[in-house]
């Protein structure tokens, strides 16, 4: 006789929603990690290699997108979650925004062979370094979700993550300063540059800057988990 379990227990447990969120963040982070080599290829004007990196970014972004879709489908509102369901959905959307921005930067560099203007180089490096820093911080924060869950989003772990969130905020503030300086520098070099190139540089700088804004959004979402 085929005997099946009659326990309601097996239907009770669902996969933790934090696993896909973390998996998604790891993919997004891998995306962002390809930005430095991508820009390095641009500095060297090695366009075939740049295209390779861009393709890799696009692949990772779509993998992250799949996780996000799957996540939304598998989060019915009958679940008892330790955090607000809406906040979770918004968190993964915010994370997805990080991957989207990276993809957009890669795409622009693929369809338009750009040349980095010399006066921008040092500030662009600084901006990139800051962006990587804030992305690492955002990823580390999401990696703490397991520990937060173990202690019910309270106590020492809550304090640790709050400190991390404050760190992301500070980095974002710092990047705002770099953004101002790099835009100012671009403005000063406008007369030596092709106007269309200039336009695209403004756009690229904005997109890179938007990554840190988005990382801050992720941090703010996480803060909602702690304050529930």
């Amino acid at each position, binding site marked *: *006789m*085929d*005997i*099946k*379990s*009659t*326990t*309601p*227990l*097996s*239907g*009770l*447990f*669902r*996969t*933790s*929603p*934090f*696993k896909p969120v973390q998996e998604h963040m790891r993919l997004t982070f891998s995306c962002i990690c390809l930005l430095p080599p991508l820009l390095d290829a641009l500095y060297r004007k090695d366009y075939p290699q740049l295209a390779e990196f861009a393709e890799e970014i696009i692949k990772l972004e779509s993998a992250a997108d799949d996780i996000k879709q799957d996540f939304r489908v598998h989060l*019915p509102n*009958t*679940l*008892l*979650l*330790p*955090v607000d369901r809406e906040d979770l959905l918004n968190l993964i959307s915010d994370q997805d925004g990080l991957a989207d921005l990276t993809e957009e930067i890669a795409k622009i560099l693929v369809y338009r062979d750009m040349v980095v203007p010399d006066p921008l180089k040092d500030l662009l490096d600084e901006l990139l370094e800051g962006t990587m820093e804030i992305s690492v911080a955002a990823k580390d924060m999401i990696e703490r979700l*397991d*520990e937060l*869950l*173990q*202690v*019910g*989003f*309270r*106590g*020492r*772990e809550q304090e640790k993550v709050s400190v991390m969130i404050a760190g992301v905020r500070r980095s974002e503030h710092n990047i705002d300063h770099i953004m101002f300086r790099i835009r100012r520098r671009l403005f000063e070099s406008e007369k030596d540059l092709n106007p269309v190139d200039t336009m695209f540089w403004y756009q690229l700088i904005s997109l890179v800057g938007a990554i840190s804004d988005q990382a801050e959004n992720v941090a703010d979402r996480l803060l909602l988990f702690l304050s529930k």
Partner: protein
Amino acid sequence: MDIIAAYGTAFVILAIIFGLYMTWGIGANDLANAMGTSVGAGAVTIKQAICIAIIFEFAGAVLAGGHVTGTIRKGIIDPTSIVNSPEILVYGMLASLLAAAFWLMIASWKGWPVSTTHSIIGALIGFAIVGIGPDAVKWNKVASVVGSWVVSPVVGGTISFLLVMSTRKLIFDTENPLKNAKRYAPWYVFLVGFVISLVTMFKGLKHLKVELSVPQSFGVAVLIGFITAGISWYFIRRIEADQEADRDFHFASVEKVFAPMMLFTACAMAFAHGSNDVANGIGPLAAVVSIVSSGGEVMQESELPIWILLLGGFGIVLGLITLGYRVMLTVGRKITELTPSRGFCAELAAATTVVIASRTGLPVSTTHILVGSVLGVGLARGIGALDLRVVFNIIVSWLVTLPAGAIMAMLFFFTLKGIFS
């Protein structure tokens, strides 16, 4: 009276067969479900779970299974109006057993989440209504039993909520979680041994001719608590921090301390199950044996013979060994989300609640209490995601199981009556 005299042996043999069949079904499914939690948390292997189940299921049945058996045997039905035709009660008990066992088989085949307790209570009520009359059902008692089905999961949930909170306060949310885990773990295990044995012994061992005074009960319970704590200390004293695992998950080493602790709650679960669910199978059997051996005395003043409790334990263990281990595996695979620390809290809460219910003589559902306890962990924001549709399914299963058991008991009752009268 003549019928009892003529067919007495046949009735007892039938009752034993049906009782074994029922307990076999309980072991194959119900016990397997209860033990599956420990297997799922990775605390015990299948083989260990079976060994634990064999020992503690028997212990639970023999030491604490008498009170619920009494309720099933003579608490639900008032047979005063049929003192002159005791065979009616015999048919009814046999029919109830068969109906409950049959319903369980259908449920196991379909994978429906039904409870053995609800099946047998439904069957008894069904038989009493048609066999004796609606007045023969002790509706007050039924109400308190049904009430306990609602209250007991809530109690389990509350206890597990508090336990989870205490582990955070004492262990997880501290400067050195591993050190505190090793310090407090034996005390938690002490609690397992102490609470379970205290509830069991507190004026509850009269059927074994053991009469302990209140201080004596406390003394023995403390002793048992210390023994279990000592054994747990032996298991956990050598656990060291696993740097590799801790990098990935900060509390990995602490969870390793809780894994051997779940061994003790697994024992407690098996004990609790034996103390409560074995009665579903042997309560009616005990009633039949009592009527036949007294030559037709329906009021059943006699003590419950120990061999019946042993037989019930045997049937359950047989069910677990023959089919239950497979169910245990499937359940274990599905509930990997339950880490040892959460599993410990949920199981301790569930076992405690069930044993208290057993001591009070209330037939409850071990599985539903375990669900309640897990939800308690969830409410403490301790589990990733729990599907609340399960709660709805449980309510539906009550609403279906009670009438289904009742109707089947009615059918079997008339069949048996037709055969023998």
